[in-house]
């Protein structure tokens, strides 16, 4: 009788284990739709354009400095 009770308890606990497993395999929402319909490339494109714009600004400052440094060197 005691062993039957223990088996019953284990069977009951395993049932809960079943539902806990269901939790782990739940799908996490990601931006798959954007990947599928190609809109993700708009996001990437916008960021690349902004970044290259800022880099272009950096390059122009760098060039101006280079010219100024050259001028000062040739003055001496």
């Amino acid at each position, binding site marked *: 009788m005691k062993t039957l009770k223990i088996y019953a308890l284990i069977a009951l606990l395993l049932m809960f284990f079943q539902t806990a497993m269901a939790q782990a395999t739940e799908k996490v929402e990601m*931006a798959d739709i954007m990947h599928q319909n190609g809109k993700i490339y708009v996001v*990437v494109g916008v*960021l690349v354009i902004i*970044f290259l714009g800022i880099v272009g600004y*950096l390059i122009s400052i*760098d060039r101006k*400095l280079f010219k100024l440094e050259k001028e000062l060197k040739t003055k001496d």
Partner: protein
Amino acid sequence: MRPLVNVAPIEMKKNWWKILAVALVLYAIIGGFLINVPALPILHETIRNLYYHVTMWFAMIIILLVSLICSIMYLATSNVKYDHIATEAASVGLFLGLLGIATGMLWAQFTWGSWWVNDAKLNGAAISVLIYLAYFVLRGSLEDVEKRARVSAVYNIFAYVMMLVFIMVLPRMTDSLHPGNGGNPGFSNYDLDNNMRKVFYPAILGWTLLGVWIMNIRVRLRKLQMENLEN
């Protein structure tokens, strides 16, 4: 055909690292959004912020280390060029820190539900930014060039150590909501062993080199201004 732009000759030997910086950050932007990432609850796609928020903090620590080394070199040699680099490295480091806090706040709002929490890591980061702001206040208060360089170099040493304590040491010793501190697993524990590493490490190098480029421009500008004053 007349050239549209007056192109100054670019020496590749001296400037290759700038191109590398741009390439690496571009890779972080493009790869950061297109390469697959683990699908984790609560985070969802925001895990991609790892390539920007975290990498910029790493870049900040590296650049502030440059500033520290130059401060120590100034104290050892009294050569003012080290003071120029130390100041501008601290400036770029501060800028990266502010960006890190801004990106972190945005991330927090969408994952923790709040722009700011009363948390060891966040408060530590804010204090570190204040410490480096104080570095510039200190510099502004001293007029004599040598004295300013010397005093701020000594302050810089304390500033760096305190920054490390506030953002690396203390948060790990207490309860924290932030990943990697207060008993939470850092991202490296369960995500960084796959695709994410491919973008993460190059991104750190990219942001660091970009920061060095900005620092380089500011140092050159400083030198020109100093020479202009002398003439």
